[in-house]
């Protein structure tokens, strides 16, 4: 994959900085971001260096001190946005008791009133809308579960074993054909879209990028391990029923085959994973590290909040069209 098209002065600087090898001293210090969108594509680009990376970035760029400084500034701002919204929403008790974490997760999910893209796909979406949604979703699904994998070494015994039990299934139970991100790639091909890793980054909405940036940030920072696992739990707890609606919508539009199979797999898999995530991962993590209890709920809130913002943006764009 090549680096994305810049969307403002900061991403322009970042792309130049990461590509630079000998000429980096000519670039000068990083400018301010021109917009929120410029911030989101910059942070997405910087995070990608820790996944598969870019063919046109210097291989050492992941640990370039100037790039790391930009990443830190943007992550601080992102975390602040998420925490401010969490503080402003009165759904999540910040002082949840460790033993109540699984129930608190259920409550946060039950109280989520964001619009449902799966409902729209099931009943009304046009073929073009579904393809646009799949392009946006591809940013995450082509690296599905990878950000959670970073958290494994940071967990106590029970949560670590449970996360691995869940991840083993995400990564295909040892069969590369069943690796979830690979199932999605095959689905993209089946509906006539491009399946290469990162193919649609230049089409990604800032809301899509922000959603991905949050899960990467939670995964990359040990301090945010509780938020990462809460995010995972909320994601799994809101996946099974919507995946079934996606199957129904895709079938309504005649898109049977590998993409339907991808969502079909998630009906069944996530009906299992949601219990592992809420109880065996988040529940035991909160018992073993009580200060992580409210962080878990924060991560769950962030997951639902970012999905709601993404859904709102997408539905508004389709309304206008």
């Amino acid at each position, binding site marked *: 994959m090549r680096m994305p098209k810049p969307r403002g002065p900061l991403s322009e600087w970042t792309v130049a900085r990461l590509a630079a090898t000998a000429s980096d001293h000519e670039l000068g210090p990083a400018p301010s971001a021109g917009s929120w969108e410029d911030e989101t594509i910059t942070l997405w680009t910087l995070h990608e260096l820790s996944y598969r990376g870019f063919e046109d970035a210097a291989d050492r760029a992941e640990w370039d001190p100037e790039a790391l400084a930009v990443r830190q500034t943007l992550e601080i701002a992102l975390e602040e946005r998420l925490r401010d919204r969490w503080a402003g929403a009165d759904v999540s008790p910040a002082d949840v008791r460790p033993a109540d974490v699984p129930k608190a997760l259920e409550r946060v999910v039950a109280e989520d009133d964001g619009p449902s893209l799966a409902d729209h796909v099931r009943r009304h979406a046009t073929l073009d809308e579904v393809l646009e949604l799949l392009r946006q979703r591809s940013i995450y699904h082509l690296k599905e579960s990878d950000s959670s994998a970073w958290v494994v070494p940071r967990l106590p015994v029970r949560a670590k074993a449970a996360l691995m039990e869940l991840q083993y*299934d995400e990564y295909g139970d040892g069969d590369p054909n069943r690796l979830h991100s690979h199932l999605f790639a095959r689905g993209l091909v089946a509906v006539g879209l491009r399946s290469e890793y990162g193919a649609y980054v230049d089409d990604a909405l800032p809301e899509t990028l922000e959603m991905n940036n949050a899960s990467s940030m939670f995964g990359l920072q040990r301090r945010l391990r509780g938020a990462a696992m809460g995010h995972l739990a909320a994601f799994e707890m809101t996946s*099974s*029923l919507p995946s079934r609606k996606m199957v129904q919508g895709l079938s309504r539009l005649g898109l049977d085959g590998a993409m339907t199979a991808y969502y079909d797999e998630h009906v*069944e898999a996530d009906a*299992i994973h*949601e219990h*592992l995530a809420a*109880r065996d991962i988040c529940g035991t993590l909160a018992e073993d590290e009580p200060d992580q209890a409210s962080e878990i709920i924060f991560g769950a809130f962030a997951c639902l909040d970012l999905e709601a913002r993404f859904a709102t943006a997408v539905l508004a764009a389709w309304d206008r069209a």
Partner: protein
Amino acid sequence: MSELWDDGTDQEFDHPDVVLQPHGPMLLRGATSVQDATGTVHAVTRPVVALCRCEKSSRLPWCDGTHKVIPRG
């Protein structure tokens, strides 16, 4: 009896093969096949499966999350 570590805690963890979720499915670990209520045998390809207990799943014997939209009596 399991051994105690220096801090006196028991480090042998519960890890049952069958776990009933409150108002949810039965999680089953380590099975290789499951026979459903009609007698059909399904191969199991995952380390853990969730078996429907509300009988409203669209893909019995597996849970599909439907129990969450059924009012609790």
